[in-house]
């Protein structure tokens, strides 16, 4: 009768968990949280983004505990999030104030402030580097020192705070639809569940914490023919974004730290009617997420625009996109199929037998 059976569930779970703990240590090797934090940047960024909890320490701990399983690490952090009281909202933060590490435009060659390639995999030849197999501490320190010794030429030292946005340039030319600044309080999807039609703030929140693979796949489908939001990437910027909070009844804002942020603004051509005439202007698709997650942020910008402009394809359907990109929800429901369904199955079985018997009796 297997593992569910009438008794023995408790013992089975305990034994299974012991096996799981053993897997992590069975080779007698370990990695400390500090090392993970120092060397697993890509993992931490993805996990912090999907769990919507910005903490490199906790993400590194989650990685260690989950043996590098992204789905599990995100799960741990999301669950941890539920135990924390939410005391403050940050004040509005403007990515124009970002300390930029990287900033490129696929729309203009010459952007005010210049293109800054920064740290990127984009032009990396994806060849396995076998020299890393036996990399020694000495080599690591040498590589570190080599890079740090390079002198930065004077002329390339541009100020990295307060870099203007590519979008501002188009806006000045009148090529972008002007909208008044929307100062409404955003809806918080973690405090109030999503209802439809959703607000844009809700959509952006769900997308930014969406599963990377899920968001990217849907964005891709949108590009490939299941949507009509084909963007030009106006600007991708990655850098440190300062965050402030304001206490009740206090005029001053307090700086609480900076987070690594990827921000994308995509330009999408759109027909706009102006004085009864059709003109072509650019719409904006917006993407932003914790950490350096550029593909996800671009896909998010496609989906943001698609959902702003409902059409009869899944990618433009807010319920289709927003209800299926969350990793906790999708992995949870898929994996629940492993639970016993004896009662429901018995109920269906009884019905099927009855229908069969009666249809045979009728023959």
């Amino acid at each position, binding site marked *: *009768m297997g*593992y*569910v*059976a*009438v*008794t*023995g*569930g*408790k013992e*089975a*779970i305990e034994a299974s968990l012991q096996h799981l703990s053993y897997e992590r240590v069975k080779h007698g090797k370990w990695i400390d949280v500090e090392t993970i934090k120092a060397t697993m940047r890509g993992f931490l960024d993805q996990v912090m983004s999907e769990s919507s909890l910005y903490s490199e320490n906790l993400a590194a701990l989650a990685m260690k505990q989950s043996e590098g399983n992204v789905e599990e690490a995100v*799960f*741990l952090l*999301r*669950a941890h*999030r*539920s*135990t*924390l*009281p*939410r005391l403050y909202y940050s004040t509005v933060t403007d990515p124009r104030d970002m300390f930029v590490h990287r900033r490129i435009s696929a729309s203009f060659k010459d952007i005010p402030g210049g293109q800054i390639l920064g740290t990127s995999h984009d032009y990396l030849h994806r060849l396995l580097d076998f020299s890393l197999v036996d990399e020694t501490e000495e080599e690591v320190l040498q590589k570190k020192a080599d890079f740090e010794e390079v002198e930065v030429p004077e002329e390339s030292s541009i100020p990295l705070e307060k870099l203007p946005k590519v979008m501002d340039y188009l806006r000045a030319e009148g090529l972008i639809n002007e909208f008044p600044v929307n100062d409404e309080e955003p809806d*918080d*999807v*973690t*405090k*109030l*569940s*999503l*209802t*439809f*039609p959703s607000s844009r703030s809700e959509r952006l929140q769900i997308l930014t914490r969406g599963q990377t693979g899920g968001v990217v796949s849907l964005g891709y489908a949108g590009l490939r023919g299941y949507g009509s939001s084909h963007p030009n990437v106006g600007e991708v910027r990655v850098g440190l974004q300062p965050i402030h909070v304001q206490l009740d009844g206090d005029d001053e804002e307090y700086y609480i730290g900076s987070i690594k942020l990827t921000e994308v603004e995509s330009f999408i051509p759109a027909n706009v009617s102006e004085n009864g005439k059709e003109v072509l202007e650019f719409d904006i698709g917006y993407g932003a997420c914790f950490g350096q997650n550029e593909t996800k942020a671009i896909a998010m910008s496609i989906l943001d625009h698609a959902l702003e402009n409902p059409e009869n394809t899944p990618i433009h359907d807010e*319920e289709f996109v927003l*209800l299926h990109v969350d990793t*906790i*929800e999708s*992995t*949870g*429901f*898929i*994996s*629940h199929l492993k*639970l*016993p*369904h*004896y*009662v*429901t199955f*018995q*109920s*269906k*079985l*009884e*019905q*099927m037998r*009855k*229908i069969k018997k*009666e*249809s045979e009796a*009728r023959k």
Partner: protein
Amino acid sequence: MSKFPFAFLDEQSKKEIRRAVLKGVAIPGYQVPFASREIPIGRGWGTGGLQITLALVGQNDVLKVIDQGSDESVNAENIKKLVQKTTGIETTIHTSEATLIQSRHRIPEVPLRSDQIMILQVPEPEPLRHVERSEFKTKQMHAEKEYSGAYLLLFEQIMRYGQTSEGADYPVYVHNRYVMNPSPIPRFDNPKIHQSDALVLFGAGREKKIYAVPPYTNVESLAFDDYPFEVEAFEGKACKATGLTNVFLDEFTDEETGETYYLCNDTSYMQEYLEQKRGI
């Protein structure tokens, strides 16, 4: 676990869930949206029910958890373990001893009392989802009491099979206002919600909905005059251990003889019955 609050969730979250529960009680059968929290077990593994349990549990509560009729199946044990670990409260397998009963897909055979709360885990709260996939539209249909689709579904089954083919999760009409999914309990359990002495709560964690059937509420399973609602019939079958016939049965196959036999699905009831018979 000392790093975590009592009953895991932070107090504000618990308060919000209790508010949703109260609203649900005030509007029987109406699905109250709530900001479902992530908790340490899988979404789809009973997180809706568990959030209600965590929000309601106090230090003096006694918890019973059932999964498909069994107190000791892995998922029931796992949920019980989490609540116990974060609250230190007592748990039980005896229905009559529990103040809170969280269950996946069964209502116990022992009748519930007015001082007990039954919490059912819900995978799909929307009874109209098979008729209309858009949440926006189904919400409207509920508001307008537009339930022809729900009946049409049953009608089509009757046309096709000569009877309805819904197994578990057979939709009900709550106090002549809302059509509701009773969660995938067998049809056998539907009548237990009607005019129940206990409060029955429903939690859908992934779908972020809470709803309720307060005590002494009319709950009717959808049916037609000429095609009345029928529960699972175990005609001529009885529990092999107890001889009981008025209970939901699990089907087993004897590994040696290949013969099919039946046992009470509610295992704690079976145990209590046997102990009583033996005079323990």
